[in-house]
């Protein structure tokens, strides 16, 4: 069994550019708007979608994603509805990988076996569960792998070479490198250190490595994307969504506030690895012509930023 994830990373690699991984919170600010955002993400340039499962106590998240989760929960989001969102998305898109990201308790309460079956059924490709380290693999990781889902593990600056093999052992799909010791939305202190870490992880595994936590600007994404196979943008999208609301309610600009930001990030803007700027447009697999042409326009504008050059 293989998921949509390896194919998508292979396509991005063939195009010589990092995959753009976008995080949005399921049910934020309400179910209908979140569904519309989800549907619009691939065309805006998202290669892989991380869909947040809101939780009341997101210990690893900064204010941006905390607020997104609170909005979703206040609007009545549940894990069942999140799975239904994926099923609905799949009616129109059978190529873009979807990874559910969140915390263990809602899954545990849903029931691990029932959750895995429902996730497979809905068209989920992988799981990221923040509070399940390798020490707790029996809980969800091993049954999920057995059912053909990818289990994407977080590695962090504190995961040293001694520990790394244990962390990578049951990881599949890709490795998610957390760019700093901190919560989502904090600031990356050293891009060079992130690059070194990515190289170190790649010396231990053939899996693609995506970097997340703290990627806020096109410059961040460009610098990180030189070494990483993927860059994750999350807090910035949640903040853009939050800023588009009036009295907590969505406005006509809410969907485009998110998709516009996705489209303006390096991947969305047709971004290749900076050293390939000026070469022919990448032909990523599974993407529509509409998406490609939309990206083509913005390509040089963004990458002309000197800070993003090698």
């Amino acid at each position: 069994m293989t998921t949509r994830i390896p194919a998508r990373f292979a396509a991005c690699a063939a195009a010589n550019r990092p995959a753009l991984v976008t995080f949005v919170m399921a049910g934020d600010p309400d179910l209908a708007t979140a569904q519309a955002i989800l549907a619009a993400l691939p065309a805006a340039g998202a290669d892989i979608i991380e869909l947040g499962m809101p939780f009341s106590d997101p210990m690893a998240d900064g204010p941006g994603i905390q607020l997104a989760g609170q909005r979703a929960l206040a609007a009545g989001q549940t894990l069942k509805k999140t799975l239904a969102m994926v099923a609905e998305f799949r009616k129109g898109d059978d190529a873009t990988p979807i990874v559910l990201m969140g915390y263990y308790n809602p899954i545990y309460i849903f029931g691990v076996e029932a959750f895995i079956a429902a996730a497979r059924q809905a068209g989920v490709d992988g799981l990221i569960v923040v509070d399940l380290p390798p020490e707790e693999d029996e809980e969800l990781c091993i049954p999920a792998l057995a059912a053909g889902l990818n289990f994407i593990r977080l590695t962090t600056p504190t995961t040293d070479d001694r520990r790394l093999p244990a962390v990578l052992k049951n990881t599949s799909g890709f490795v998610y490198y957390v760019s700093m010791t901190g919560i989502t939305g904090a600031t990356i202190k050293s891009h060079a250190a992130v690059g070194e870490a990515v190289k170190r992880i790649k010396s231990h595994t053939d899996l693609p490595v995506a970097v997340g936590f703290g990627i806020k600007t096109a410059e961040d994404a460009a610098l990180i994307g030189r070494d990483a196979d993927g860059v994750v943008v999350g807090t910035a999208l949640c903040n853009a969504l939050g800023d588009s609301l009036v009295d907590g309610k969505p406005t006509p600009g809410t969907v485009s506030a998110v998709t516009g930001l996705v489209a303006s990030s390096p991947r969305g803007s047709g971004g290749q690895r900076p050293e390939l700027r000026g070469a022919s447009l990448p032909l990523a697999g599974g993407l529509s012509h509409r998406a490609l042409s939309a990206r083509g326009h913005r390509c040089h504008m963004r990458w002309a930023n000197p800070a993003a050059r090698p």
Partner: protein
Amino acid sequence: MTATGANSLRNGPDDHGRFGLYGGRFVAETLMPLILDLEAAYRKAQVDPEFQAELRDLGEHYTGRPSPLYFAERLTRHLGGAKVYFKREELNHTGSHKLNNCVGQILLAQRMGKTRIIAETGAGQHGVATATVCARFGLPCTVFMGATDVKRQWPNVLRMKMLGAEVRPVTAGAGTLKDAMNEALRDWVTNVETTYYLIGTAAGPHPYPEMVRNFQSVIGEEIKLQHQQAEGRLPDAVVACVGGGSNAIGAFHAFLDDPSVKLYGAEAGGHGIEVENGHAASMTGGRPGVLHGNRTYLLQDADGQILEGHSISAGLDYPGVGPEHSFLHDTRRVTYVPITDNEALEAFQLCTRLEGIIPALESAHAIAEVLKLAPTMGKDETIVLCLSGRGDKDVESVGRYLGLIE
């Protein structure tokens, strides 16, 4: 630690940090290496005579151990049943049992070369105890405290500040202990290289529940010895309040393999166990889930979202409980009972008037259980109540409830 048999209830946790189904290490990867380091450092300290000597010395000369076992004569007469003894943990330096654990953990933090201490606090008792050991050992200290608790436990906030700690009010959620713990965990993830998280209760990821229990077990060990001296035998019942449950597990642990000793944990029944989200009795009114690094009984909704809960007592106002209590609840070794806000208030006043001891509102929950229990027992039987903290911090909020203050 005492050697125990194969069927002992005192063997937990196992190598994976589990007490049966409960416990574990449900934390983000960033923290995992540190938690493993902590466990290694703790294992070393456990068998290091120098560490143990230092712990004993500070216990005796700084904390003021052993704390007395006091025969509450007037309360006993008033209730007309079992003889009631108070284990006077409120007489410890800083006014609660919390210092027992803080002294142990600060020694460990020092050994690990950590240069900054963080802690969460509900009632402020653990915050004060942490700020105290940080002052004593010259380490900077940041205490996370829910904004609601900052208001209702103001005297403790002042004490922490005077001791040199930074108190960070947390406005997320209901602004109580759960939210403070989330924020402390976020700080820890961010500053993991330099920072030691001094958890105040017997909960969190392994090895905290075991470690905190062991530092608090001195309570039960002393009770055993002192009761032997006073009565020539084991007590018939031991009663303690349970929020996260550190004073309770400390009082119970020495007696887990003594089936003649009945153990009672008083949970926060708030407005009543039947009131939705109106109590903080996680074992009576919750079910198993995963939060803050461990699996344990939690107050949660059908979708696994954690509820805020409610208690008049900031120290019990937490939707979870230490994992060993969950295990002892399932095995029925300990009987956990909910005590309402009003029952605790009545017990607070009765204890104050009859014994001249103002108990913490947390401890008043345990006293309320004693009020129910003692009259049903014979005059030849004994109950030991763990009086975990003194009530100076609560006089203002109780005064307001009683209409003594505008």
